[in-house]
Structure formats: structure tokens, C-alpha cells
């Protein structure tokens, strides 16, 4: 465990959230510091994806209580795009297709909006294309894919690689990887994980949401949390992931449900 920076980048306190009137998050607490990798695991329906959606501001979810600060700022008061500008990135579990919108135009809009937010001039076309080339290499993304429409006709693996490519382009301070391993074969998994590892630094952090230990063999977490019924019910070091892999979730469920 590292303690280089004392300041928390992300501080979630007693977060409650619901969708269509149904409460999913029932008091989540979590602190993340720069340089850390947190894994959030848990059985289906425990609220893992809700947490990532709420943090990034998906309009379908309603926050009913608690607070979230990001570098001291009230994250929940910000629009989804401002959260992105502030350095929050979500690698989607199911990246959507945007037919007819080329990756180049899409990324250019994203990068330049962020620059605008910080009062910078838009990137010149040549600098932008140079950046694209450079970052494509991180996840071995084909030039053909980069020039196609956003996720249109991409295979499952290509979509996930494209997510990490965008992460490389946007250089977020906190990345949430939502089930990035789902639907990936072992080769794609390795490429995606190695991309994430290349982007890791002492200044950024990663939250890995996953069902399985598999991804954690490649992206080593500092902490492992178990989310169950809308709350983090257990937190420990990487050894917890191995234990879950071996024993499943039932023993935790039993423990919590009997309380």
C-alpha cells in the first residue's frame, strides 16, 4: 500500500442513489488516493454499475443522499461533461455505437472541449493526429478502427480496446473500468490490461469493477472491496480477490444477511 499523497482524490460519503424510484446504493463509503488501484467486486445486482453511473452523472439515476468530493470539489453538483473535464473517465461496460460519427471527429470534440474548459486553444489538426497516432499504440488499435465511426461494427474486444484508447487520449485523473473484462478473450484482455498499466502513474488512480479475479491478475489492485446490496461490506488487500475466486460470494452474503 502506498501513501505518497495524503489528500484523497475521491471521497464518497454515505452515498444513496436510486433509479426509477428503486434505491440501489444504500450508503457507499470509499476513499481513493492518487496512485491507487481499487477493485470493486460483488455479485450481480449489488450496485457496481450504478456506482459508476452515479459518479459520472448518468441522468437516469437520482442521488438521494450523501456526498462525493473530487479533489475537494462537489462532484455531484457538476454536469457529466464537467466531471469528465475534471478528470473522471468511465470505460463503459457496453460502449454505445454512434453511427456516422468518426472516431477522429468524436475525439477531437472531446479533447477540444476539455481544452476549452481549461481556457486553452483547440489542438491543431496536425498535433491532434499526432496524438491519435501516439495513443493508438497504447492499445494496439488499428488505424482503420480509429477512422471508423464510434464503435460502429466493432467487435466486443475492439470496443473495449477503443475505450482504453479514449482513456489514453483524455489522460484522466481517475478512471473507472466497468466490467472491462467482460466479453474479452485472453489476448484482448492482455492488450487492454497492458494499456491500462501503461497509463498508470503516481498521479492517477483506477477503480476496477469486475466479477472475476481474472482481470486482477493483470491489473494489480491495492485494495479490494465487496459491494453487496448497495453497500461496501468488506475491504481488504489483493488477497481478498483470490479468496472470492475460490469461495464465491455466498459466505459474504450469509454473513451480511445474518447480521
Amino acid at each position, binding site marked *: 500500500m502506498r501513501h505518497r499523497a495524503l489528500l484523497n482524490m475521491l471521497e464518497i460519503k454515505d452515498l444513496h442513489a436510486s433509479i426509477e424510484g428503486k434505491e440501489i446504493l444504500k450508503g457507499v463509503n470509499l476513499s481513493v488516493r492518487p496512485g491507487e488501484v481499487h477493485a470493486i467486486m460483488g455479485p450481480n445486482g449489488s450496485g457496481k454499475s450504478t456506482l459508476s453511473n452515479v459518479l*459520472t452523472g448518468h441522468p437516469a439515476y437520482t442521488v438521494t443522499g450523501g456526498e462525493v468530493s473530487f479533489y475537494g470539489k462537489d462532484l455531484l453538483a457538476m454536469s457529466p461533461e464537467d466531471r469528465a473535464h475534471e478528470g473522471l473517465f468511465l470505460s463503459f461496460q457496453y460502449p454505445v455505437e454512434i453511427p456516422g460519427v468518426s472516431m477522429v471527429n468524436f*475525439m477531437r470534440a472531446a479533447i477540444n472541449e476539455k481544452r476549452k474548459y481549461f481556457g486553452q486553444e483547440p489542438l491543431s489538426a496536425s498535433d491532434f493526429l499526432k496524438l491519435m497516432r501516439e495513443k493508438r499504440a497504447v492499445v494496439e488499435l488499428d488505424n482503420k478502427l480509429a477512422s471508423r465511426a464510434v464503435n460502429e461494427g466493432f467487435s466486443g474486444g475492439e470496443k473495449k480496446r477503443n475505450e482504453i484508447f479514449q482513456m489514453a487520449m483524455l489522460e484522466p485523473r481517475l478512471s473507472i473500468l466497468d466490467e472491462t473484462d467482460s466479453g474479452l478473450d485472453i489476448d484482448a484482455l492482455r492488450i487492454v490490461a497492458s494499456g491500462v498499466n501503461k497509463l498508470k502513474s503516481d498521479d492517477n488512480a483506477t477503480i476496477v469493477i469486475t466479477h472475476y479475479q481474472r482481470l486482477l491478475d493483470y491489473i494489480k489492485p491495492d485494495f479490494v472491496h465487496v459491494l453487496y446490496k448497495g453497500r461496501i461490506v468488506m475491504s481488504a488487500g489483493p488477497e481478498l480477490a483470490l479468496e472470492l475466486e475460490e469461495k464465491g460470494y455466498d459466505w459474504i452474503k450469509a454473513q451480511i444477511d445474518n447480521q
Partner: protein
Amino acid sequence: MKEETNKKEAEKQIIDQAANEEYKYGFVTDIETNVIPKGLNEDVVRQISALKNEPEWLLEMRLKAYAHWLTLKQPTWGHINMPEIDFQDISYYAAPRKQAPEGNGEIDPELKRTFDKLGIPLEEQMRLSGMAVDAVMDSVSVHTTYREKLAELGVIFCSISEAVKDYPDLIRKYLGKVVPYTDNFYAALNTAVFSDGSFVYIPKGVRCPMELSTYFRINAAQTGQFERTLIVADDDAYVSYLEGCTAPMRDENQLHAAIVEIIVEDRAEVKYSTVQNWYPGDKDGKGGIYNLVTKRGLCRGDHSKLSWTQVETGSAITWKYPSCVLKGDYSVGEFYSVALTRNYQQADTGTKMIHLGRNSSSTIVSKGISAGHSQNSYRGLVRIAPKATGCRNYTQCDSLLLSDTSGAHTFPVIEVGNDSSVVEHEATTSKINEDQIFYCNQRGIGTEDAVGLIVNGYAKEVMQKLPMEFAVEAQKLLSVSLEGSVG
């Protein structure tokens, strides 16, 4: 902690605001205009003809058309809600009074300023290179650029009034041959009272070296614009023609009833592109242009090709079906359309592909986008005559809804007269996807820009068919028209 709940609301608002986006071309030019009094009767028809010093045969055609029009009723089959038009409450001829002395090619400075403001400079050196323009204000053509240069190649590009005088044989040969005055109510009306428009003739074997373009501007109040365009591409000729249109913002509705006729001979090709941005009315549906247009091309020659591309964002009501009569063997017809409606706009638009020649083929790609309280309909006919064997048609008809209160409708008719022909029809209707918008948001792109991106992506297949200069304009127009219109 109400932010999350409010976010959806805010997104809706942004999309709704698009509806309130100001119409950028809504100004009025203060210029002296000769307007004939309101009303329509035989004398008015004679007066228009006399004002233009027309030959007897043309007056006769007008009078026949007028007599026929009197027997017709305003059609009601469109999926549009249009009040009955009081045709006696419209002035049928308005001409900006010339300030500059005639004949020396000078343009009235006020007119020049108007077209400058619309982004259509009339001085040749200021034009985008490679585009000649005929500028039409109200009932008359005020200026045509590059005429001499084109004449060197034998290309005729002038106002239809001048063409009647200078090329009477060509006009007599072709005018009213593709759209006869008996075709429909508005065609009869147009033939009776048409004032100006453009004439294009591309001689045999000539590839027109620049885009030809007509810019239509309605300026005078309480007038109708009835222009007439005639394009003839002789054997092996090629031309790309563009049409743009705007009008001032007014509370009253104004009528625009045009006819476009195109004749394409052996192995010739015509590309006709429209960016239609007539004043659409305000956010409550007050005012706006009634755009009731008959556009049709005859692919008379073997291996001839006609391609219609339209981006329709303006007008309170749009009623038009640019069509192809595919008479020549192996002739090709294409129709690419984006129609965007918002507020209370209504569009009923589509195409007819009439296959008469053997092995003729056609492609239809229609993209409707409806926002606000608007109604957007695709209406299409694909008819393959019994003797037209080996024909093909591919139709793709997509609708995108940006609001719960707008409507998208399709009325396709397919008639296949033989079994060696193949017709394919694909249709989709979708609502703008919240997850797509959120995906953009998460990457730092605000909702308004996201909607612009998504809609332009959706329309891309059609936008790609536009000539470069137009495509950029049209893209901006789509994004601007959409500001605030998802909900």
C-alpha cells in the same frame, strides 16, 4: 441532492431551446419594389406576361394553365395540416426596382449588400472559385455570374426570362414537357404565374467546369414566389447544380410554389442539390413559408443519370417529391434526403422513381429528423413498368425522433410490373438515444454538441452526397437548427 433529478430536466430543456434558436436570415431588405396588386385573375396572368415582354405562345400556355387551375382544388392528401390558402390575398409579382442603369451589368448596391449578408457575394472575384450563381429576389433574377466564361463552352446559364428572349427554340422545346401544367394544382398555378428562375443548357459532350447555383430570396411581404427552373443536359453532358433559399421572418405565411424540370439525354448526368432554409415560422408555429414544389427529371437517354440531394430544414410546410422518370435503358435515378422539422414545422416529402426503361436502377435514401411538435413524413413511389425488365430499386427510409411530441410517418408505395426486377425497402424509426448522449457527455461533450454530432452522423450518408462547399454549410445548418431541440 436534487441535481440528479434535475439533470434529465436540464437535458430536455437544452433540447427544447433549440426550438427558440433565431433564424439567421430573417432580415428584410429595404428596397423599392414594384408589386402588382393582390389577387389572381386572367388580367393578372396577362399583366405578368406583358411585364416580361413574352411571346404569344408563352402567354397562351399561361392562360391555358390558369383556366385549368380554376377547375382544380387544393390537394389535401398530404400528411399536413394546412389552412386553405386565399389565393386572392397574394401578390403574384414583385420586382426590386433597378437603381443602377440597365444594361451595363451593374448591380444595385442594396441588392448586392443583401446577397453579401446571405453569404452570396455577386462579384465574381469574391465567389468561391468554381461556382456560378443566379441570384433571384422575389419575382426576378437580379444577377447571374460567370455567364461569359460559361458561354465559351456553349453552356447557357441565365434567368428563365432572358432565356425566353434569347433561346426561344430551346425553351419552347423543353418547357412544360416534364411537368405539364395539368400535373397538379400547384404546377398549374406556377405555370400561370411563374415569374423567374434559372435556365441551364449543357451542350453535347460538355462537362460543366463549375457548380451552377441559384439562390432564391423572398423579400417582399404578402407576395408569393413562383419560380421555374429548367435544366437540360444534352448527350454526354454533366452538370452539378445547387439551390439555396431563405426568406425574412414574418408572422404571415408566404407561398412558394416552384417547378423544377430536368431533362437528361444519352449518357448525360445531372446532380441537383438543395439546401432549403426558408423561414420556418416561430416557435409557436406562427408564420413561415409554405414550400409546395414540383420537381421532376426525365432521364430520357440511355445510361443517363439524375441525382437529387436535398437538405430540408426550413419552411412551415414542405410538400415536395423530387422525382425521376427513368425512360432510358440503364438510366439511373437517385434521391438522397435529410428533412429536419422542429417546433410546429410539417414536412411531407419523398420521391417517385418511375422505371420505364429496361435495366434502369434507382436508390432512395431518406433521413427524417423530427423535433418539438413537428410532423415529418416520407412519401415515396417506386413503380416498375411491365416492360421495364431487369430493374433495381433500393430504398432506405430512416426516421429519428428527438422528442415525444413529434411524429414520423412513412407512406411507401411499391408497384412492380415484372418479375425480373428487384425492389428492396428498408425502414427504421428510432428515438435519439439517451445512452449515446451520455456517452458523449462522459467524454466531455455537452448535450447540445452531442445532439449535433449524433444527428450529423445519422445524416452523413446524405450529407456526403452534397458538393463540398454546401456540405459544410448544411452540417452547420443541421447543428444550429437543432440547438435545444431534443426532449
